């Protein structure tokens, strides 16, 4: 009962945020980057949530900010998952030097805090939507590799994989027909965690000023822009931060339920 309630609230929050992001141009009362008010007007006087330090409508900026956050999060997480899981399966099937080379490369990636690694790469390559997504995908793929490699290793020794080997199947059959379907329950959990951590990651990068570049802003960027207003006694900067938190919590709520459901299905046993 409690888990059902969590699920419904989580789905509700996610649907609401998704609708807000998708229909941002229709819902926003003002263009996000135009100065339509004076600085730091309180809610009610100027727009739903007041105005920011440059007199822009905060509510409109949050709607557009969610677009950036969600786009980067979803694309980067999908890419990271695809890279990490595929490499893990290849390493598990080939073992030997392939396994060692991929494994050590991932060790190197993981030995440096991701945010610092991202700072270095973005400083060298320059910040754009593409480099951001690519950097995050590569860095976060290491986690997927770590989680997937032992599971894929166990599955690779299964006798149905041996049957496929005796038949002479190609690599893609092994990967996507024999091994991948058996990893889905564990991958679902990892994908959910990945979505939250990617959302936090892009928000942190933007908060540090090397994420989405002004005048555009994602949720993390909005927290940074409005941080000064906190000192002025305004609560509005907390709204984008709360959006990030709500997103992460809701994603986990849905994934918890999915994992439980998937492992209850008879063919999963």
């Amino acid at each position, binding site marked *: 009962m409690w888990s059902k309630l969590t699920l419904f609230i989580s789905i509700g929050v996610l649907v609401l945020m998704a609708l807000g992001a998708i229909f941002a141009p229709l819902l926003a009362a003002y263009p996000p980057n135009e100065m339509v008010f004076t600085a730091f007007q309180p809610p009610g006087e100027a727009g739903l949530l007041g105005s920011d330090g440059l007199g822009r409508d905060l509510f409109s900026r949050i709607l557009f900010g969610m677009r950036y956050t969600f786009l980067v999060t979803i694309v980067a997480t999908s890419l990271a998952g695809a890279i990490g899981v595929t490499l893990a399966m290849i390493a598990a099937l080939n073992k030997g030097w392939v396994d060692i080379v991929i494994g050590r490369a991932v060790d190197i990636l993981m030995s440096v805090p991701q945010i610092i690694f991202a700072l270095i790469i973005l400083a060298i390559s320059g910040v754009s939507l593409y480099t951001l997504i690519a950097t995050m995908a590569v860095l976060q793929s290491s986690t997927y590799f770590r989680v997937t490699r032992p599971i894929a290793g166990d599955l690779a020794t299964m006798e*149905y994989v*041996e049957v496929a080997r005796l038949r*002479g199947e190609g690599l893609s059959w092994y990967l996507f027909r*024999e091994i991948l*379907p058996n990893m889905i329950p564990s991958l679902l959990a990892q994908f959910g965690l990945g979505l939250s951590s990617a959302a936090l990651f892009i928000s942190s990068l933007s908060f540090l000023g090397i994420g989405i570049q002004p005048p555009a802003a994602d949720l993390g960027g909005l927290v940074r822009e409005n941080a000064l207003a906190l000192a002025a006694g305004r609560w509005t900067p907390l709204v984008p931060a709360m959006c990030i938190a709500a997103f992460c919590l809701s994603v986990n709520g849905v994934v918890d339920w999915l994992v439980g459901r998937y492992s209850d299905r008879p063919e999963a046993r």
Partner: protein
Amino acid sequence: MTDTRILTISNLKVEAGPNLLLDDVSIHVDRGEVLGLIGESGAGKSTLALGAIALFRSGCQPTGGSITLSGQSLLELDAAGLDTVRRTKAAYVAQSAAAAFNPFYRLEDQVTEVPAMRGHLSRAERHRMAAALFEELQLPDPENFGRRYPHQVSGGQLQRAMIAMALINQPDLIIFDEPTTALDVTTQIEVLRLIRKVTRTHNCAALYISHDLAVVSQMADRIVVMRNGRMVEQGPTRQLVDNPQTEYAQRLVANQGEGTYAAGNDNAQTLLEVSHVDVGYGALTAVKDASIALGAGSVLALVGESGSGKTTLARAIAGLQPVRTGAVRMRGETLAPLVERRTFDQRRLVQYIHQLPDLALNGRQTIREIVGRPLAFFHGIKGAAADARLRELMEAIELPADYLDRYPASLSGGQKQRICIARSLAAKPDILICDEITSALDPLVEESIIRLLTKLIEEEALSILFITHNLGLALRFSHETAVMQSGQILEYGPTRAVFETPQSDYTRRLIGAVPQLREGWLDGVSRAAG
């Protein structure tokens, strides 16, 4: 009378949700008596045996009846009372001693754990008790045996150490749950003999569970036949074996009967030839200088105990483990050592069936996908043609066609093994390599798989390399038999010759160790063994 009665279970019902695990079961065991429980997996025999100490797996509930052990009504006791009864009055010997011992502690500390818990004996006294039991169970160097760790002793020794653990408390009742199923036949005999000896000398009551009627008939004074949670038949051992009343018991007994040799085909063309093959892993040579030949349309049994190299040889033939020296030839063509280097047709013509169908079937694919894949892969058959062929294959393995859209998890063990056979047949092979494919199945299911294979040899023009540790099976099913020991082929020839005039001592011992229903068989073998 009541004085000697150790265990009385009357009208016991055990339910797990909607399933009735035990339905109105009543048994009793007296002091000095061994009661055999026999039945296939899922018959409820373990549930009943654990029920004797009022131990039920989670989710199972006793919903009726009573259990009286050593004069105490167990279902009326509280948790503390139950603990005391279990600790002092009963002992349990599990199937896998290797899983039952903690690898971290020395054997003696584990064997004497219960006396140590009760705290009324000194360490020296406990050591004397353990050493005396080790001696009684004929373990080597009984004085120091207990200093070893579980991994330092053999499987048979570990099973005997577990019996010592059971005896140390002088329980009224010992429950033996398939204590020799995991052992090789020659090791099994020793353990069986000792179990019988100690149950007599210690004068306790025993429940002996097994799926092997021959073993039970040697061990038990009375036998209860279980099926689907009900008692099918019970009676004194001799009476039940010689004159079974119910149809099910009759089938069980008939299944144990003396086998007849399969009719051979003497002038069969040689299909597969293995000559002077060595196979190894690292420094270990698992197969040494093995030569066998498989004729078209015949069955060659490869028998031996665990570790004899029979599976390694089979894997080398299949190309899963490369041969070091020697050659594997099919119709005169030499096969590459690894399957990856073999041609498309060579891979198609040799099909391998694994021991455990649970691991050999991908749980996320439907039966249609599993059996359909070799059709598409080897023969390019798809769509409606594939559907027709799949129905034929399901008919060949005697399963309904609507199973095609099921997942393996909804099938029984025997049905899963049939699906593995269908998958091999889909490739249209010449040779099936069957690696212990029935050893995880119940005897009657095993028999039906063998009947199926016998039928398929004719229909599909198959030749079979049949790896097994079950000599009775080799006798009934194969035309030729090769006996392996320590990686070498010790004896090889027509099955009848190998069984009737064995040349080596080891083969004689192996054949002699196969349990039989005959009264006094165990005593006879024990005497012969000295």
